[in-house]
């Protein structure tokens, strides 16, 4: 089988970013998954083993002195080196900020072709066919790359891992970066990830709140329902703009696009931009006191009512069922 490179992102503290299993699963759909990971010299062994447990047949460890000091360039040079060494037929990266930067510069460097924000991919008679969900899922588009190596960015949560564990072969190579073409990392402020809730884009259930929650304090009702369901918390742009929650929770046109089994919209009117981020959910439940809210047009189960009376009753009912 042909080599498929997967660019694995590593946090500033040296652990794997949670997109790794999905990327290796995506690579395995096309060929032999090869994890490409960039580390400070001498620190790759444990990560290589961990990548084997996630299904990497081979791990290409690129050691670089400037890891953590410059933005993106070590990862780019790692992909260039791995492409030269392993002649892959496709390269997959996360559709994250860092992943997209690496993919973009790599495409120019190796004259590859980009297929962005893939929700699925497959091999069809030696062609890599990539599925995209366009305009918030209104269209399903398939694309191929002609005339260069396909470089595919994969939507977080769209392709689930992990695949079967292996004992990977490990190749280590040293890469250097051109600092005149690199931005500099001056400081790292690690985000506090104290949340025990699932990641928004990967969750099977999402509970989102909108302007109808009324205040930052009462948005806590969304958290309570999410915790009762083991769900991730999301929000509409109106709730973000009103300061109820940070922007990282925004679902919609300019926030996260989610496609869970169950999406519960609380106090969200359902503006077209919000629907663009969630309308491919399998089941949509909406609770809103405005009977004319557009969210009801796409809800499988809509309740015209006050979230502050309906939701506490729902939480009680869920908890009573759990006890039975």
């Amino acid at each position, binding site marked *: 089988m042909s080599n498929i490179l997967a660019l694995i992102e590593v946090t500033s503290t040296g652990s794997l970013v949670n997109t790794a299993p999905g990327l290796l699963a995506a690579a395995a759909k096309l060929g032999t998954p090869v994890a490409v990971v960039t580390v400070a010299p001498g620190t790759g062994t444990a990560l290589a083993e961990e990548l084997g447990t996630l299904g990497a047949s081979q791990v290409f460890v690129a050691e670089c002195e400037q890891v953590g000091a410059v933005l993106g360039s070590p990862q780019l040079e790692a992909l260039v080196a791995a492409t030269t060494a392993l002649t892959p037929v496709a390269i997959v990266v996360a559709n994250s*900020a860092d992943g997209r930067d690496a993919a973009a510069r790599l495409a120019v460097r190796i004259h590859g072709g980009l297929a962005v924000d893939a929700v699925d991919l497959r091999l069809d008679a030696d062609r890599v066919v990539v599925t995209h969900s366009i305009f918030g899922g209104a269209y399903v588009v398939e694309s191929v790359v002609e005339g260069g190596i396909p470089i595919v960015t994969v939507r977080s949560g769209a392709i689930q891992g992990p695949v079967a564990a292996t004992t990977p072969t490990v190749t280590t190579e040293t890469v250097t970066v051109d600092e005149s073409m690199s931005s500099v990392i001056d400081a790292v402020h690690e985000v506090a990830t104290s949340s025990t809730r699932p990641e928004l884009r990967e969750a099977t259930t999402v509970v989102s709140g909108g302007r109808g929650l009324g205040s930052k304090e009462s948005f806590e009702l969304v958290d309570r329902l999410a915790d009762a369901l083991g769900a991730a918390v999301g929000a509409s742009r109106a709730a973000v703009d009103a300061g109820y929650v940070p922007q990282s929770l925004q679902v919609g046109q300019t926030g996260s696009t989610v496609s869970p089994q169950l999406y519960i919209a609380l106090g969200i009117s359902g503006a077209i931009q919000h629907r663009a981020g969630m309308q491919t959910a399998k089941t949509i439940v909406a609770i809103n006191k405005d009977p004319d809210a557009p969210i009801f047009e796409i809800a499988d189960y809509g309740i015209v009512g006050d979230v502050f009376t*309906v939701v506490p009753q729902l939480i009680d009912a869920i908890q009573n069922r759990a006890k039975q």
Partner: protein
Amino acid sequence: MRIVVLVKQVPDTYEERKLDVTTGLLDRRASDAIIDEISERAIEVALKHKDSDSTTEVVLLSMGPASLTASLRKGLSFGADSAVHVLDDGLGGADLGWTSTALAAALATTGYDLVIAGNESTDGRGGMIPAMVAERLRVPHLTFLDSVEITVDRASGLRESESGTLTVHAMLPAVISITERVPEVRFPNFKGILGAKKKPITVLTLGDLGIVPDPQLASVGRSVIVSTIERPPRAAGVKVVDEGNAGSELAEFLATEHLI
């Protein structure tokens, strides 16, 4: 300092947007074309610097069909000095490779100290163009900035990614992109709206940029659409009015559907 802002015209997200299912390309007749909100925020970053340094020149650069002029005039009304419009039938349906090639060539023509773009457009949502342009120009990229500070020789700011929040900087010349965390664009004043009509818009064709489509564009890996399917619209399901027990009934529904 010359700041070039990359501007994109997109279908209005307040309307239904359509693709042509035979070509997979945007159906431009289906919705109004407007300047992307994220492009407006990028313009604001440039104008804010111009506020503090009147020698700064702000140039808008965009690629698109003839109708793009209206969006460029809107952009100029906020206070930018001039605009460059890359217009060529040979660029119809251009993918990321072609678009970044044309924009980088245009930047080489206009000259720049700093290029500012939105992190991703609301239509394509690729988020690739800024870093691709940077690679073609062989300058640093500094993308997805939540805040920006510009000084005479550098751009810096906060960047959030999977690996954490970082303080980062690039020495100029550089290409930066901003997120919707940066402030909204100012309102154009009356003088700005009137003045926008008189500001220069330079039109550049592929020939002006010295780009010969074949072989220069043909040698780049190309994204080709093989199928486009419109998903059937979602139908509304059950809608009940709460009469005191809707919460319990919803729990019942979720249990029946095996969702809890």
